[in-house]
């Protein structure tokens, strides 16, 4: 691995100047390396982080059929990594004009890494430096504990997609030590809504009563109200006290953190070294979290800028056609499929145009007349500012759900593709399923990374309980055993997982005689199951 030539570095610095003038903001220093195939041999398994810790799985091909990207929330194949300074990789025979284009793209990524709020927790340190320290720590532990280090790494990694990334974001906000919930809030937000079917009427009646008291007694209306409910419900105060206590547990949705805080096994003197490994795995995973949650935005942003900046650059002269070819490869929408570069770039361009005409405010959205909407133009020229704001504060889910609208779909002639079996011709047919924005939005949202949400608690018998929140999707069943096995080891005792499993119901067997091509339409029913891992054996029982 060697640095790029001074000539190429000169080009890069030139690109940075122009990018700054266009409004991009990023730190001065960057590192660009030429990588050979031989370098990639080492970099590839380490997700392009040269100093990442060693682990045997890096030496083995990882099965990719099932949920490749669900399992690994990091693209193993980045050209730019979010370090301080950012590092980018090139091969050494690019012509200058292509380098200019790629540099602009890379600068787009760097700007994104350093300004998007979802990356906030990566701003304060250099990940390569930290990774190096971790790698040395592992090497030292290996020399003392041998293969058990690798077992602990393995078990910790089974949970590393469930790190409390959003808790971390919330904590960074500075809003975290918000006042503990007041009794009044508890009464309305929790107490009144307990039970399977909370009555809305009762809730609104209470709200009304509260408002009435505030009006009647401007001075101490609230106190009077609280007093009245305490008198009415004797158990309220006890429940509230318990609730306050409950709040103190850490890592309720973050199993690794929970284990580090409460696992009796890990807190035994002889096992304390394992805590270090868990911490490394967890922080490494947290570092990668924002990347996969901003794929469309990040690639869209970089593509937007390589397009914008390179087209306005004099170095494109004589290479317009070459550029068009490469750019088309990167940012064209496939007839069937979803290219994040293309979608992201088009959305940014679309939003810039919309904002330039002032079509982002209430006035525009309240215009219901179609013709008036089409004519709507306040000529505010706010487009750039608007997309810079989006680059700073959005992630893919927000981006997709907020901005894909019917105008955008129509403008780019997007649609959702369906696939169905044609029995006559024995073919799979791809067809235009829908051109509605809502459907398209849903389709994109469904293809986004979304790890399950799991809440951790301890049962009365000391067993660890993971409660998988039902979101209409089952867990991959083959993996449950492996995960719970590791978890049992790290917890030092019995472990339970509660999750919902679809049970197919064979509908009416009556039409069986219609021949082999007719199978009854299958419907499913969701059942809650409890998986138990005890003494390294897995069992499954029906919960509830």
């Amino acid at each position, binding site marked *: 691995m060697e640095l790029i030539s001074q000539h190429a570095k000169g080009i890069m610095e030139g690109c940075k100047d122009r990018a700054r003038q266009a409004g991009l903001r990023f730190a001065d220093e960057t590192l660009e390396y030429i990588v050979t195939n031989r370098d990639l041999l080492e970099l590839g398994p380490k997700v392009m982080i040269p100093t990442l810790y060693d682990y045997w799985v890096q*030496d083995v091909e*990882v099965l990719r059929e099932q949920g490749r990207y669900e399992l690994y929330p990091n693209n193993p194949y980045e050209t730019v990594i979010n370090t301080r300074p950012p590092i980018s990789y090139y091969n050494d025979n690019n012509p200058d004009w292509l380098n200019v284009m790629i540099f602009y793209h890379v600068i787009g990524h760097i700007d994104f890494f350093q300004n998007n709020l979802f990356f906030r927790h990566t701003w304060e340190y250099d990940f390569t430096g930290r990774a190096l320290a971790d790698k040395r720590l592992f090497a030292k532990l290996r020399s003392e504990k041998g293969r058990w280090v690798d077992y602990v790494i393995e078990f910790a990694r089974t949970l590393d997609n469930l790190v409390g990334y959003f808790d971390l974001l919330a904590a960074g906000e500075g809003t975290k030590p918000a006042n503990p919930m007041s009794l009044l809030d508890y009464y309305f937000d929790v107490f009144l809504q307990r039970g399977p079917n909370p009555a809305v009427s009762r809730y609104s009646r209470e709200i009304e009563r509260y408002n009435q008291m505030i009006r009647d007694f401007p001075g101490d209306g609230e106190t009077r109200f609280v007093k009245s409910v305490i008198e009415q419900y004797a158990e309220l105060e006890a429940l509230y006290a318990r609730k306050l206590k409950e709040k103190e547990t850490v890592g309720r949705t973050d199993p690794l953190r929970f284990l580090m805080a409460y696992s009796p096994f890990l807190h035994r003197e002889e096992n304390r070294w394992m805590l270090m490994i868990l911490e490394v795995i967890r922080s490494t995973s947290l570092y990668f979290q924002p990347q996969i949650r901003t794929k469309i935005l990040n690639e869209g942003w970089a593509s937007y800028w390589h397009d914008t900046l390179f087209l306005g650059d004099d170095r494109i002269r004589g290479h317009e056609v070459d550029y068009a070819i490469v750019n088309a*490869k990167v940012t064209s929408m496939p007839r069937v499929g979803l*290219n994040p570069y293309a979608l992201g770039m088009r959305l940014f361009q679309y939003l810039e145009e919309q904002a330039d005409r002032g079509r982002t405010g209430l006035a525009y959205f309240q215009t219901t007349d179609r013709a008036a909407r089409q004519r709507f133009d306040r000529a505010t020229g706010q487009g750039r500012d608007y997309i810079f704001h989006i680059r700073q504060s959005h992630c893919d889910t927000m981006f997709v759900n907020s901005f894909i609208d019917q105008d955008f779909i129509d403008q780019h002639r*997007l649609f959702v593709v369906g696939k*169905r079996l044609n029995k006559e011709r024995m073919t799979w047919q791809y067809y235009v399923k829908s051109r509605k924005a809502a459907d398209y939005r849903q389709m994109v949202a469904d293809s986004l990374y979304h790890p399950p949400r799991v809440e951790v608690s301890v049962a009365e018998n000391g067993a660890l309980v993971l409660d998988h929140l039902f979101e209409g999707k089952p*867990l991959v069943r083959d993996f449950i055993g492996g995960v719970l096995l590791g978890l049992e080891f790290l917890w030092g005792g019995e472990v339970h997982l509660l999750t919902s499993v679809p049970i197919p119901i064979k509908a009416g067997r009556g039409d069986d005689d219609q021949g082999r091509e007719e199978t009854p339409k299958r419907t499913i029913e969701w059942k809650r199951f409890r998986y138990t891992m005890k003494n390294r054996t897995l069992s499954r029982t029906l919960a509830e």
Partner: protein
Amino acid sequence: MHRLQQLYRRLEARGLTDEQRRLIEFELALVERSGDPQQAHRLGPAPQVRSLYSYADPDLFGQGLPSPVLSMVAAQSLDHLLERDLQREKDGFPRKIRIGKLVKPGRDGDDKVVVIPTTVEEKLIHDRLREDEEGEGGEGQEAGEGGVGEGEEGEVIGEQPVREEQGGGSGSGQGQGGAHELESTVYDLGRVLTEQFALPNLRDKGKKRSLTRFAYDLTDKNRGFGQILDKKATLKRVLQTNIALGRVQAGTRIDAGSLMVSPKDRVYRILSREKDYESQAVVFFVRDYSGSMAGKPTELVVNQHVLIYAWLSYQYQNQVETRFILHDTEAREVDTFQAYYQMQVAGGTQVASAYRLVNRIVTEEELARDYSIYIFHGTDGDDWDTYGEESLPELEKMLVYASRIGITVAENGIEGARRSEVEKYLTKSGLLESKKELLRLDVMPKDSTEARVIEGIKRLIS
């Protein structure tokens, strides 16, 4: 097509059950839609829709960086990894390394199989809700993909034959090199299989013949250098030398300290090549590639045969002869495992045709005299010859000379949990019981895993 129709009429004249007729008509219909079976057998692989997250910079900018997947392979030696895996078992955790194959399909028949250790890191992740599975019929409607361009809602924009969805795994991991590459990698796979899964050995039945295979042993002696000093022989030589020099006289006491030792006197045992004797075997791989084999059954059978082939290549140090036979209503022999592996399905089913061809090859080439003969047949169990009237006599002929016949029925699930024809007539014939030593049957459900496939091999050859 015409021939198939004729065959159908002939069969019908002999009388068919309703179920049987439906089955044949189903396959006939398949043939009709796909045209000439000879051509259809050669259809290429299906295009694949990419995941949102599979788009990456280096790839798109044509930087030409190699895939990191390749680099993951065998950064450590296979042996080291397997040793580690064995240790896992001793430590009370299940093994994690599996033997995987990457198959890169090629249009003009240059599919390549690369054998690699694989693993999966288990995590709690969401699964896709599969309401309609491929092959089970039904209006397979999936969540959908993005698309762009012209077309009214409901308009069909593309088509893909159902049959195409078959064959080995996708992916890269592709090295350069011709067909012989398969040989070297299957050899590796076989070595792993033999060690990893403790497959039982085939029984030797053929004549003992000297094959040029060598073992190395410390049998030869050498003066001057070698691996282990032969003390007795060395002492003899020392004495001879000293007698020749006149330093040792008969009748006098020998002073061991004053003996002269020439470097040439040291006699060592040294590693040397020894001829080894081995039995010869020929293995027939027979695969049903009729229309009803589409998808999973073919995948299972082919996978199983890859594993058997790999293991045989290892166990017999590439000394096994292999023959590959494909059949629909007619049987044909193909030259290489490559061709055998990747031929696409089409056409109807007649098991007897394949058995007949095997018998003919054995008789014409007089294989039975010099070889142990093994036959592995993979099918989905459908046979137009419902009662095995033609198949069974051929099978009995085979049983005379074969050391083992292993029949794998991979259920295609088209007709639900019904027992297949082949299974039925085999059971009925009683051959499975009376010739238990020679004939084995293994029925695999459609959703079998690799572990089940390996389990199947054990059943076939135990």
